[in-house]
């Protein structure tokens, strides 16, 4: 396979932990693609390697073999990272959303959302405008000077999503962002992610255990026997 125009492209990805008798094979020869503007769900039983896969795509964990493209850039090529400054890739190309909000507790909502754009070197005017737009979009603009400890769980999760999008990433990796939410709120978050996918042309992979959320996705990536199987959702729910 050659150069990719997809948001995320993975080819022959393998991850093995340990060596010899303690060797654990998590993924073997996994290949899939999530294009920009596509919302993919990643499902698998616990311990099957969902987070591991997400962390490899997010340039946090080293794969054992295979290739990873983010946008048009080949970032992992069989045995090594092609791009050495992985944190630069993370802050400029990727947005992370987790099960818990993982906001920095001593920063306000506005500071949490703008910290990555500030690090990239955006002008104050640009990052403030972007953050305000996102906070308004998620209906928490009035809480911009609050600390995470002063917000509810749902509000914090929305701030976390706003933070993930503040650097205008083309890739969003969401690790069970709805696990701690009730169904109504979970559906709202997923709808929000779906909306972002469409409106901002972002490639999103969302790890989930909840099959009720799958209809909102464009495709389902499932890990079975260490392989990733891609399945298109026939009737995606329209937001």
């Amino acid at each position, binding site marked *: 396979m050659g150069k990719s125009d997809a948001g995320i492209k993975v080819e022959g990805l393998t991850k093995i932990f340990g060596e010899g008798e303690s060797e654990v094979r998590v993924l073997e020869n996994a290949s899939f693609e999530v294009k920009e503007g596509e919302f993919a769900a990643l499902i698998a039983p616990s311990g099957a390697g969902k987070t591991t896969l997400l962390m490899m795509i997010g340039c946090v964990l080293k794969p054992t073999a295979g290739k990873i493209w983010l946008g048009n850039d080949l970032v992992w090529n069989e045995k090594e990272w092609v791009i050495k400054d992985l944190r630069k890739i993370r802050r400029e190309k990727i947005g992370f959303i987790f099960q818990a909000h*993982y906001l920095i507790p001593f920063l306000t909502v506005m500071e949490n959302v703008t910290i990555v754009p500030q690090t990239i070197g955006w002008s104050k005017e640009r990052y403030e405008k972007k953050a305000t737009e996102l906070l308004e979009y998620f209906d928490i603009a009035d809480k911009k000077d609050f600390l995470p400890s002063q917000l509810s769980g749902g509000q914090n999760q929305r701030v976390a999503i706003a933070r993930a999008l503040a650097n205008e990433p083309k890739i969003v990796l969401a690790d069970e962002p709805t696990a701690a939410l009730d169904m109504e709120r979970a559906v709202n978050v997923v709808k929000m992610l779906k909306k972002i996918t469409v409106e901002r042309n972002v490639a999103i992979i969302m790890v989930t255990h909840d099959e009720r959320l799958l209809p909102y996705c464009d495709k389902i990536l499932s890990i079975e026997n260490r392989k990733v199987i891609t399945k298109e959702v026939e009737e995606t729910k329209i937001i």
Partner: protein
Amino acid sequence: MINLAYKDISHSLGKFVITAMGVGMLLGIVLIMIGVYRGMIADAKTLLKDVGADIWIVQKDTLGPFAQSSRIHEDLKDTLRVNPFIDKTAALTFQNLQIKTPSGKMVRVYGVGYDPFEKLIPLNPEKLVKGRTIQKDHYEIVVSEKLGFELQDKIKLGRNVYTVVGITENTVSSGGDLLIYLSLKDAQEIQFLYSNERIRNDRARGITNKNSHLVNCVVATLKNETDANEAKRYIERWKHKSVYTSKEQEEILTKNVIERASKQIGMFTIILIVVSNIIIALIIYTMTLEKIKEISIMKLIGLPNGTIIKMIVEETLILGILAFIFANIFSHLIYDKFPKRVILTPSDALTLFAVIISASVAASFFGVYKAIKADPTSAIGG
């Protein structure tokens, strides 16, 4: 760019300030210890400076009067005075005494006896805060203000009662005991004159004519352009005494008399500085460990190491500076409560500041190392 150190400190300001206060109190004790050391050195030289002599003449083969017992005849001062190179002379006595303060407490003092009619006297008039110097041969006394006496108070010493005619400040012996000043005659009586019973006993043993015209040393100032070492050699040869220049006397005091005590204080100070630095290092390390999750998140979302290191080092520096400020406040609040003189100097404070800041920055490397090693995936527990 957001100042993460400022934000983190503001978020837990109380805890940070209390930590800085704790470290500051520890550093304050270090400053006090350095002050005690300085005070000890200064005390050792106080009397020497107040006497202002160029040479000290003592009993042959002794280091007296501060390091060894020394007794010489009082009239040596007159014999010496006729020498063309001698300007002024004075005979002095030194002795430890116990006196009862107005509060009823028995306090050890160091009594200095001098002839009030000589031109060279060991009482520095600049240190008189009340009253006057001794102007009579008998029954007058000048005391240190810390003893709590007022002018005209009566003090019983030996057989006689003395009237306080002057009060001094910052007058202490090399051992840190407060000074009292007596006329030479009174001081000789207290030191050399035995009780009536002892005199009768001595007579029965055939010991008579007990001479009380002894002193512990004779001091002298030299005329201009006289070399102190030449004067020393001359007196040693012809008068059969040991003679020390003021510089030698200072060395005897600082090396022979207080050396071990000052070394002990010095050692204790060094240990305290080392312990303080270890505590600062542990605090910085613990502060970093407490933030390790946030640091992992920062790394995960792509913040560079430089941003994280800057936060840790800045917090360390702010802690060091705050602790230093608290140390100065604390030490200045308590230093005069110590029984012995404590001298706090800006140069010592600045040296300690440099040591603490260097040590803090070095200590922050533990935290920085931990932060660099932090696994971004630990932020999400997977």
